[in-house]
């Protein structure tokens, strides 16, 4: 499904990781692990196409990827349901169903303006977005931040169903999600970050 070969990534002109190769098959998930600042977020942004890779190839079927960042992209003035419907429509899908709301325990909050949600409730809303846009490959950046244990479990079961239905996922996380997945330790691919940063732009002058 997603095939990455010999990828190198750069952030703010600093080379972070190099020589990454992996494949994510339908029905399987890949968990990215590594200490803070190693480049998980940057890797996911690259896979999502937001920034170009410094080297290497990313092969991925067109229109199959959904990205969920640290921030949830929620509009505080819109209600929970309006937020979800907006995303569904942008991706050309049907409006959100009660089943999805229940799955993420949002049914009681459906008409609440998103600005008045607590940290964990906002996060649940951000994750529910993944269920309404109908994408196969999910790129998730620390999806369980601020979630309580019950919500983590709820999310894990959603993810398991997604995989069982032939989807796949790449997840950066520091905690244990409690389901089987390949784990990719990023530490071995780390490039020693230069103390002084030279950007691509600077490199051109060597």
């Amino acid at each position: 499904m997603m095939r990455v070969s010999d990828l190198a990534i750069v952030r703010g002109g600093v080379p972070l990781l190099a020589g990454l190769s992996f494949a994510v098959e339908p029905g399987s998930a890949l968990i990215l692990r590594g200490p803070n600042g190693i480049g998980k977020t940057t890797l996911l942004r690259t896979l999502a196409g937001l920034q170009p890779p410094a080297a290497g190839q990313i092969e991925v079927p067109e229109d199959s990827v959904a990205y969920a960042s640290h921030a949830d992209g929620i509009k505080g003035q819109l209600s929970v349901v309006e937020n979800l419907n907006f995303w569904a429509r942008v991706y050309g899908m049907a409006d959100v169903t009660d089943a999805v709301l229940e799955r993420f325990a949002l049914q009681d909050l459906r008409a609440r303006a998103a600005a008045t949600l607590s940290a964990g409730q906002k996060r649940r809303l951000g994750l529910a977005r993944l269920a309404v846009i109908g994408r196969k490959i999910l790129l998730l950046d620390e999806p369980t931040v601020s979630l309580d244990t019950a919500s983590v479990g709820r999310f894990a079961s959603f993810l398991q169903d997604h995989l069982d239905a032939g989807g796949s996922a790449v997840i950066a996380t520091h905690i244990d999600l409690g389901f089987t997945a390949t784990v990719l330790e990023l530490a071995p691919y780390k490039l020693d970050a230069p103390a002084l940063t030279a950007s691509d732009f600077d490199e051109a002058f060597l």
Partner: protein
Amino acid sequence: MSDHSLRPVSSLWEFANPVRFMALSGKILPFVWVACVACLGVGLVWGFFFTPDDYRQGSTVKIIYLHVPSALMAINAWFMMLVASLIWLIRRHHVSALAARAAAPVGATMTVIALFTGAVWGQPMWGTWWEWDPRLTSFLVLFLFYLGYLALWAAIEDADTAADLTSVLCIVGSVFAVLSRYAVVFWNQGLHQGATFSMDKEENISNVFWYPAVLSMLGFGLLFVALVLVGTRTEIRLRRTRALMARASAE
């Protein structure tokens, strides 16, 4: 950095290579400086001290040796930035991005000099420091474009991003600058009395004034080239040092 700077040049684009650019610009820079100082020195001294006073304007006419060249270079600098921006966007030659960056402050300064000398001149001529004459007005607008361009460079930290965005701004801005010029001419056409003093046409100007004027224009042109070369070289050196230090600390 040495070996490919020795190969013969096979295409103009090779100067876009930083190493080649440094080698070549290092060689010609002294000559540019010498020529610039010579032209400016002779032109300005000749103009200021060895030309007769104009019968209508008195000695104030002499400001023309500063005013006209700086005005011309202000426009040419923007044009050069436009070309450099296009080269950066299309061929991604880093030197051209830095050259555009180096030209902007020089061009902005030229604009200020033209505005300032014009104002100083306008006081005895028109009895006012400022007149909303189309030409002056479009210069003011040009100055605003320079300000926006410089502010955008200054506000962005990442060099690639800054080069990309300022290039896009330069291109869009050029279109609007030309539009503004036409708009301004249109706007002030009916209201401004044609009596405004003008020496636009070469016939209006006698040779006594003309030769030193040409010399100082040449001098300003060379000054611009020299300053842009210096600016570009400094930027290149800066970036090369950064890159080298980064490499060294990585090893």
